[in-house]
């Protein structure tokens, strides 16, 4: 922390800023970028320097102004004040097309892909070239060189989140940019894939490409980036060399205070089984779905069980079957507190206390163009008295919404704000809060911290841990290994619609979970689940 406070002193800062360009000429220098929205100063005289061939991190919580700054750099927003120089020359970047012409490419966090178009057409659009065979072979080239397999003729809506991100990365690499902006690129990758991606990025940097890397995973930034600019509340608070920092000191700089150290959950003795899936088979409805094969799973009282896996391996289908959006073929496949519920509706399951949070925040977990109040009512009316004489009680929904906003520290313009107006992390906090305040007995949650900053992630994690400590059963479906390893008692993985055995997380390494995610078996270890199953039910 003392080092951090040194860094906020201007002279130390400027020397470091120069140092972070690692001796090479600065490729881009953003000076005093200021951008105001009604009521918010999103960027307040922010400076950013990226050297040629360097990997530079942009760190900050949601709402710190990272995306505003990046949008200015990519020509999506016009700054109110400030200047940008590119390769030593003053430029004004009026549009993304111009940014691309200069040599700036960007991988968006919320992918800017066209669902109805094919991979090839999407890439052609992003590059402003014709969708022809020449482009097709270039795609094949790049995807082979960097190990990013793609089928150019698939329609995007049939692809998983992970593959969609691959499209964006390939599209950027095809433009052979001088500066590659990556917004949270690793959130959908397995550890092996992350290692491969980092290798690729280092190669690219070595060949002279500069990379602006936005992530909330501090450890990643430490091992990958040569420099980091930290934003808080629209201002640049410091410029550091990540290698010289610890994860804790980076987090402190970002949040403006220490965040409570994440506690690894001590081994708990799982109580009586509250939730179970037994021999669940679910055939895919069409070619875009994954069939589930013989899924077996038990979650006990007070336990957090994690399911790892790369997106598109059956997570959506599994969650839908558990939540009740899709019905199992037999009542007995899904059991809540030993009551078979496999053929019951989502509402009926919620009334029993089986609540769920799907992966897609906007459009699935929340209705984008309804207010937070209405969004509260939509799931909470099953378990909370939000009706009066059979009619919706606006006042009660509003009270509950305000409760959630307060308890989970949701940044928004009050409870009547539209769900779509919240940033990803805040909406996620709100959705998780909405389910948790219904005091569910079983909570199934998918990718709760995808694209969410460290502060919001910590809030969500703490809430899940508390929920479990109070005796609920939590099933956490995630691609984030750190999250799984830290918060789950047992971990298994879903691969191609098959669920692996479950192992106590204390005995697993990240590499082993990676193997599970790839569908391998861990021979050396004793699978716990079978034994636990027998024990709990005899």
């Amino acid at each position: 922390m003392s080092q951090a406070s040194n860094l906020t002193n201007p002279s130390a800062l400027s020397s470091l800023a120069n140092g972070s360009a690692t001796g090479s000429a600065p490729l881009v220098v953003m000076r005093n970028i200021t951008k105001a929205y009604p009521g918010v100063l999103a960027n307040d005289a922010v400076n950013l320097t990226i050297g040629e061939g360097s990997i530079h991190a942009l760190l900050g919580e949601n709402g710190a102004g990272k995306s505003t700054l990046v949008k200015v750099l990519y020509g999506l927003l016009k700054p109110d004040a400030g200047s940008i120089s590119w390769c030593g020359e003053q430029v004004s970047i009026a549009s993304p097309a111009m940014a691309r012409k200069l040599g700036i490419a960007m991988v968006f966090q919320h992918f800017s892909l066209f669902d109805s178009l094919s991979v090839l057409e999407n890439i052609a659009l992003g590059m402003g070239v014709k969708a022809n065979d020449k482009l097709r072979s270039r795609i094949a080239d790049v995807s082979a060189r960097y190990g990013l397999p793609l089928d150019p003729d698939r329609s995007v809506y049939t692809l998983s989140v992970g593959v969609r991100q691959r499209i964006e990365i390939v599209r950027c690499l095809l433009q052979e940019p001088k500066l590659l902006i990556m917004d949270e690129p690793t959130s959908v990758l397995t550890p092996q894939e992350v290692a491969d991606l980092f290798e690729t990025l280092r190669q690219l940097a070595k060949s002279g490409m500069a990379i602006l890397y936005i992530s909330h995973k501090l450890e990643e930034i430490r091992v990958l980036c040569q420099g980091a600019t930290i934003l808080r509340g629209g201002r640049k608070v410091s410029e550091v060399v990540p290698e010289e920092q610890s994860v804790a000191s980076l987090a402190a700089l970002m949040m403006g205070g220490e965040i409570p150290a994440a506690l690894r959950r001590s081994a708990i003795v799982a109580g009586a089984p509250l939730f179970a899936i037994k021999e669940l088979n679910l055939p895919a409805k069409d070619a875009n779905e994954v069939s589930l094969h013989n899924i077996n799973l038990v979650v006990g009282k007070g336990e957090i069980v994690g399911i790892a896996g790369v997106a598109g391996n059956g997570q959506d289908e599994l969650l839908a079957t558990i939540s009740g959006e899709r019905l199992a073929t037999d009542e007995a496949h899904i059991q809540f507190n030993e009551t078979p519920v496999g053929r019951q509706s989502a509402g009926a399951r919620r009334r029993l206390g089986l609540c769920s949070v799907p992966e897609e925040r906007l459009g699935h977990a929340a209705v984008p163009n309804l207010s937070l109040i209405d969004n509260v009512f939509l799931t909470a009316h099953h378990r909370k008295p939000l009706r009066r004489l059979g009619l919706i009680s606006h006042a009660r929904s509003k009270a509950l919404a305000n409760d959630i906003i307060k308890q989970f520290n949701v940044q928004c313009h009050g409870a009547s704000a539209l769900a779509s107006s919240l940033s990803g992390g805040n909406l996620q906090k709100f959705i998780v809060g909405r389910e948790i305040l219904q005091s569910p007995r079983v909570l199934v949650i998918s990718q709760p911290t995808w694209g969410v900053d460290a502060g919001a992630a910590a809030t969500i994690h703490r809430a899940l841990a508390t929920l479990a400590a109070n005796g609920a059963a939590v099933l956490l479906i995630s691609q984030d290994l750190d999250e799984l390893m830290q918060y789950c008692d047992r971990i298994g993985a879903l691969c191609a619609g098959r669920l692996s055995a479950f192992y106590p997380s204390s005995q697993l390494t990240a590499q082993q979970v990676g193997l599970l995610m790839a569908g391998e078996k861990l021979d050396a270890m004793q699978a716990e689940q079978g034994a636990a199953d027998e024990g709990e039910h005899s």
Partner: protein
Amino acid sequence: MNETLLLTALTIITAATPLVYAAIGELVVERSGVLNLGIEGMMLVGAVCSFAAAHYSGAASLGIVAGIMAGMLMAALFAFLTLKLQSSQVATGLALTIFGIGVSALIGQSFVGIAYSGLQPLPIPVLSEIPVLGRLLFNHDVLVYGSFVLVALVSWFLKRTHAGLILRSVGDSHNAAHALGIKVIRVRFMATLFGGACAGLAGAYLSMVYTPMWVENMSAGRGWIALALVVFAVWQPGRLLLGAYLFGAISILQLHGQALGINVPSQLMSMLPYLVTILVLVLISRDRGRIRRNAPASIGQAFHPTT
């Protein structure tokens, strides 16, 4: 009897042609993510303006140009209101139809009851000499040939050209298109103008060929059939041509049913195009993939460029 059949077939072609024009224009508009419900109004204004121009100048070509311009003018009004001022597309489209009915009646007051010689057929040399087939296929006015060329061009444009890809991308997700630096409003403006031009041309065809005179409200619901046709065709030009001829045939059967010895109540026949549309909608909804690939996902949504 053969002669009757041939004549029926020929009237089907004249009945289908305005539907083809109006619908192919709307298809392009909808593919860009705009829903213009004002086809009927644009057709009527196109019809009266082309009739007036042809009547005063005596030149059919001027009539056609006037129809196109009038349709575009109406479309420009719609585009300005919905794209620049972000008014609701549905409400504005309905208003455009009501406005078109009124304004065309106003302009057309002095033309009621005047006859016009109509657009002359343009037989294709040699081919039109073929017995029966020649008369059926190669002895039409220029607008009939033009409708086929236009459908082929639109199909090629949407599937094969980069500009067509941009148009489809805007219809699929205007936010993603904006993020790529595509000028969403401009693309939609152009598409809407094209749709207006086509609707105006369809109107011109009505007042210059189909029934060469001006009658108030002469489009008689064809603009709405064109709208249904676009959905019927699942936003694909080839299917649209097929659908337009099917709908044209049904509307002719409804008129000539008695003469051809078909004894079905005319009310039932008038319902047919819409019944068929509903039936087809039910059938195509089974093929989710086709809809996902072709239906413009952002249709009817206002685009705010700042977000």
